[in-house]
């Protein structure tokens, strides 16, 4: 594994960089949530790439961590989306 390039490790690095860039540059709240999710997926991918290197089978601990991470990410995103909807409604109220 050390000898060659691991394509998934490269993808993880690129996703983390892209997510960071998007999070700062994007102004729309929905886009920012998408950027956070891309960043998160990059981190998950990095963890699983590391897990695969354990001799004797994939390391189950990072797998369990990412599994809980996916569920936490979706619930945190749902909470974020509720905040986005609230903000949109409040701004609408201000216009009237």
């Amino acid at each position, binding site marked *: 594994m050390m000898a060659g390039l691991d*394509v998934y490790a490269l993808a993880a690095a690129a996703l983390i960089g892209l997510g960071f860039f998007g999070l700062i*540059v994007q102004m729309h709240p929905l886009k920012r949530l998408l950027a956070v999710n891309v960043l998160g997926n990059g981190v998950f991918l990095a963890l699983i790439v590391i897990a695969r290197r354990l001799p004797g089978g994939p390391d189950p601990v990072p797998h369990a961590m990412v599994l809980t991470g996916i569920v936490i990410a979706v619930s945190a995103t749902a909470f974020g989306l509720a905040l986005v909807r609230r903000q949109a409604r409040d701004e609408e109220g201000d216009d009237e």
Partner: protein
Amino acid sequence: MIVVDTLAALILVVLAWRCLLLTDLFRSIVLFIVFGLLMALAWARLDAPDLALAEAAIGAGLLGVLLLGTWRAMGSPDGDHRQPGRALQVIAAGGGMVLAVLVGIALHQLPVSEQAAGALALERLDEAATQQPVTAVLLNFRSYDTLLEMGVLLMALLGTWLARVPLMESLSGDDASRGTELLPVALRVFVPVMLLVGAYLIWAGTHSPGGAFQGGAVLAAAGVLLALAGRLRGDTGDSLPLRMLLVLGLTVFSLAGLLLIPLQGAFMAYPPTLIYPVMLIVEYSLAVSIAITLVLLYTGSRGLRRGPA
């Protein structure tokens, strides 16, 4: 198979790039859903079938519905054309690139450790009474993580309740129930199958890929499908039974840990003869709580009631 991996990794990055830099919000969301599906494929290629199942149900399915629902509730905005300052863009691009290069180098130079926690977990798998390492870690070796995660799920739901803009209320009522003639047939065919698959996945977690998270997510998807078709409506009223189901996973998991203290002398240590039944009970109660929490995160409401059939 290196070609498949290279292609998958490349498409993942391109999709993320397009998704984050398009100004059209709707297309960004659709690209993000495709990104989620491709992530599921990548998990499968990376020997992580558990993650592939969870990602396909949650990352691509539920998250997509949530994003599109919010997009529509906001009045289908086409995106924000405000641009941040040039300096900020340059700093962000530079920072992102440096971060990516550093992570890439770190991932390639990381030494392989023989003493990883996972090696210990794999070695002592027999003590967890399951041959499925991920389930053993989730429900046995590191059960604190899972227990606290259920708490985080509930916190997210409480936050959503506090923000109080139910998704289903902002969509007009007729809209949700007005479907094509295909819809009732699709519901009759898909919902029972989804419930069956969900229940099977939870049980399968004890010996093969699957478990409370994957099964719960499939059950939640069935619930969201019913909500989309208007058969299940968000309700403003509180209902005690529903709240009890929401905390069922947390309660059963904690009780199992507490009640068995006299036998083993430690919190969340299970006697070998009881591990299997305890694990099964915990898995099913966790899955029920996860499924209902996810459906309520979708509707954003406090309760659920039956819609017109």
